[in-house]
């Protein structure tokens, strides 16, 4: 038998199920953006502050994405605090959002920025193929697992259980 508290939690989760996903997606975007910048740019020095001075579209898209991920990291943390405050936090669904958002950004970075715009590569002066495959396959894997988690925490399945 379920206690009254869990029942209230469940109805709050259903009401705020979209906010759980969005908080996760934004957090995932910010997280991968941060890892990319902190680990690859600043710790390993694999690629740099500015690798190419000709692709102006790349410069703009990079700047927009950085601003967006900077905002997303902070904004999603406040959304998370709001969900906790309402007893509406849904860990599984939130993690699904993180994987979807993080994977989508990583795939965008790997395909559009690295390959199509050739803005920068993951690493220089080495055979780039294994790096690209690892980067993009991890991204695809994250997206798939993220989608599975989000689908499995749809409101329908939950209300059927309840």
């Amino acid at each position, binding site marked *: 038998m379920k206690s009254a508290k869990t029942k209230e939690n469940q109805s709050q989760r259903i009401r705020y199920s979209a906010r759980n996903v969005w908080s996760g997606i934004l957090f995932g975007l910010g997280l991968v953006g941060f890892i990319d910048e902190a680990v690859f740019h600043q710790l390993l020095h694999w690629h740099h*502050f*500015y690798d190419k*001075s000709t692709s102006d579209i790349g*410069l*703009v898209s*990079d*700047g*927009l994405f*950085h*601003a*967006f991920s*900077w*905002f997303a990291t*902070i*904004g999603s*943390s*406040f959304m998370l*605090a*709001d969900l906790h*405050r*309402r007893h509406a936090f849904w860990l599984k669904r939130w993690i699904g959002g993180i994987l979807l958002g993080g994977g989508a950004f990583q795939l965008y970075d790997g395909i559009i920025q690295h390959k199509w715009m050739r803005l920068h590569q993951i690493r220089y002066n080495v055979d780039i193929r294994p790096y690209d495959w690892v980067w993009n396959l991890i991204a695809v894997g994250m997206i798939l697992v993220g989608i599975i988690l989000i689908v499995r925490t749809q409101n329908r399945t939950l209300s059927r259980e309840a």
Partner: protein
Amino acid sequence: MSGGPASWTSWEWIMGGLIFALLILLYMVAAAISNRNYRNWPLHRYVCWVVGMLCIGLSLIGPLARLSTTNFMIHMLGHLLLGMLGPLLIAFSAPMTLLLRSTPVPLARRITRLLKSKPAQIVAHPAAATLLNIGGLWVLYTTGLFMAMHHSLLLYIVVHFHVFAAGYLFTVSLLYVDVAPHRLSFQTRAIILMIAMAGHGILSKYIYAYPPDGASSEQAELGGMLMYYGGDAIDLFLVYWLCMQWYKSVRPRPAASMLQTLD
């Protein structure tokens, strides 16, 4: 007439310093007047005003300002103090609230009417403030204006006044910490702030790649990086504050039906 603080006489330095001392004193007097009729003016606002004035003063007079005409990285440090940190601190010292509280009622009414007027509404819209702020910086660093500024004192003063005024307008149009008659939704302000952050970040990378006239490529790289990471640090605070306002505004309140049962 020569341009820039590199050629100023010691007499000009002293005058500059006196102006900032006077502005700090003026704030203290206004706060004392306000304290007679209202709740005591909070301590943190005094601190914000004084430190904000020091930031602006440092960027305009003294050794930093003297070096900034020949060293682009120092110039960028001055820009961060004058256009970002200074305006942010001044906004948090709530000068408009203090002005309204410390002036006679008829004058305060006239100021309020001015703030509520259509032209003020247009200029204080975050989109217009962003255009003035970030757009102004693009014009400064990508045209001959940067070089020209260092040869004409008038131009130097106009540009520096604009950098501060636009930075202040930008801050108060996004964060409502002072009197704000025309309020916009969180979503609108969030989107505009993101665009402004992107514009600032892109410009700093552009400077890194294409040095402004008169700056060596080494100096431009240092200056660009300082602008990029320094901008991020200030933006972090703006985003944090904006999101916190959202968090407070959506806090769950007891439903009306629940209040009725309590009666």
